[in-house]
């Protein structure tokens, strides 16, 4: 299993029956492949779908139906479509239970940077700023460190913020971390690491939970 699959599988365990869930492009999208048995979720896509289904098979697709990345998708029976204003009324209005998205940096206040590296990468925030502001629970799903090994979980983000104090949980290949008023709480570590290793790879101080679980 790849690192991405590992993260996606762990994130999926956070979802509850009946949740309205928005999954960002890339890794977060893979969460849909690991929904536990007996759990039904409603996938929201900010371009205007509730009840988004799987990626269509090789036998054809309807390109009237795309996801927020512009790629063809299917919808479930009983799905609905709507315009962008209503889609973000759902999002901003607190009707999305869980948003899962990636980030470049997260800090101990729960602020995140995901949409811009000044002078280098300026894709735009798309729906991310509204999603992290409006969703009841925001989960950051990302690799624990950057490619060069530098921490992404910081005392304070250094890139321009996508939102301030909005993240509830961080799931990486190494750890599950909760953002609390007291700071970042290490709740679980991967079976192939230790709390100490996680702390070493994290700039922000970690509060150790009483019983650190494993995944």
């Amino acid at each position, binding site marked *: 299993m790849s690192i991405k699959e590992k993260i996606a599988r762990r994130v999926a365990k956070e979802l509850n029956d009946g949740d309205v869930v928005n999954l960002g492009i890339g890794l977060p999208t893979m969460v849909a492949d690991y929904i536990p048995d007996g759990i039904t979720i409603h996938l929201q*896509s*900010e*371009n*205007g*779908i509730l009840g988004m289904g799987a990626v269509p098979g090789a036998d054809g697709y*309807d*390109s*009237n*139906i*795309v996801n*927020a*990345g*512009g790629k063809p998708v299917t*919808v479930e029976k009983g799905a609905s*479509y*709507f*315009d*962008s*204003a209503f*889609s*973000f009324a759902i*999002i*901003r209005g607190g009707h999305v239970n869980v948003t899962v998205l990636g980030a470049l940096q997260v800090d101990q206040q729960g*602020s995140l940077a995901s949409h811009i590296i000044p002078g280098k990468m*300026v*894709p*735009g*925030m*798309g*729906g*991310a*700023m*509204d999603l992290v*502001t*409006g969703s009841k629970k925001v989960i950051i799903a990302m690799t624990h460190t950057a490619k060069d090994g530098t921490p992404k979980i910081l005392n304070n983000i250094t890139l*321009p*913020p*996508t*939102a*301030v*104090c909005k993240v509830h949980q961080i799931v990486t290949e190494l750890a599950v971390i909760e953002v609390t008023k007291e700071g970042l709480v290490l709740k679980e570590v991967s079976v192939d690491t230790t709390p100490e290793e996680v702390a070493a790879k994290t700039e922000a101080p970690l509060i150790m939970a009483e019983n650190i679980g494993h995944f």
Partner: protein
Amino acid sequence: MRKVSPQEAVASINDGAVVMIGGFMSNGTPEILIDALIEKNLKNLTIIANDGGTLDTGIGRLIKTGAVSRLIASHIGLNPLTGQFMNEGKMEVQLVPQGTLAEQIRAGGAGLGGILTPTGLGTEIEEGKQVIEVDGTNFVLEKPLKADFALIRASIADEKGNLFYRATTRNFNPMMATAAETVIAAAEEIVAAGDIQAESVATPGIFVDFLVGGEPYVD
């Protein structure tokens, strides 16, 4: 509402016009109107749209010609030329959170003086804007957006200009139809008045000034 050719529809769009274009990553973008606009070799257009399209689809095709000097959008990541033009100073890009962009266009069409959103608080988005406190909570005041023209795409239009959008092609199209001085709609199919269920009309015909048929089918 007048049924016209794509060329007639865009005839009054000139250099410097502010143009909203519907679509989300080119899904729901009126490609035949983009074609007609490209033919005109315009300059200094301001485009308001969800995104910059791709190199080969939607708004990206227009950007490639150099006709756009300013883009107001939420996402430009799928079209590398947008970022390049921005870095070279050829095009100004104003990035707006997607939900805010949708509300701003809606507000422009709905006669609102603005809307208060929590989105963007504490980020570069709030710079230069009024921050208003309501019952102890701060919100960013976002102003309405309007345009000279809106180019939108419908799956089905009727003879009165009523529009129906299939699946995710709806996106920004209905709001843009309310927020521009002149609204030009391209439809896959034009049917008789009354053939679209009255409850399923997402854009009433009164909003459409020019209707063009022949938008390619997607399936």
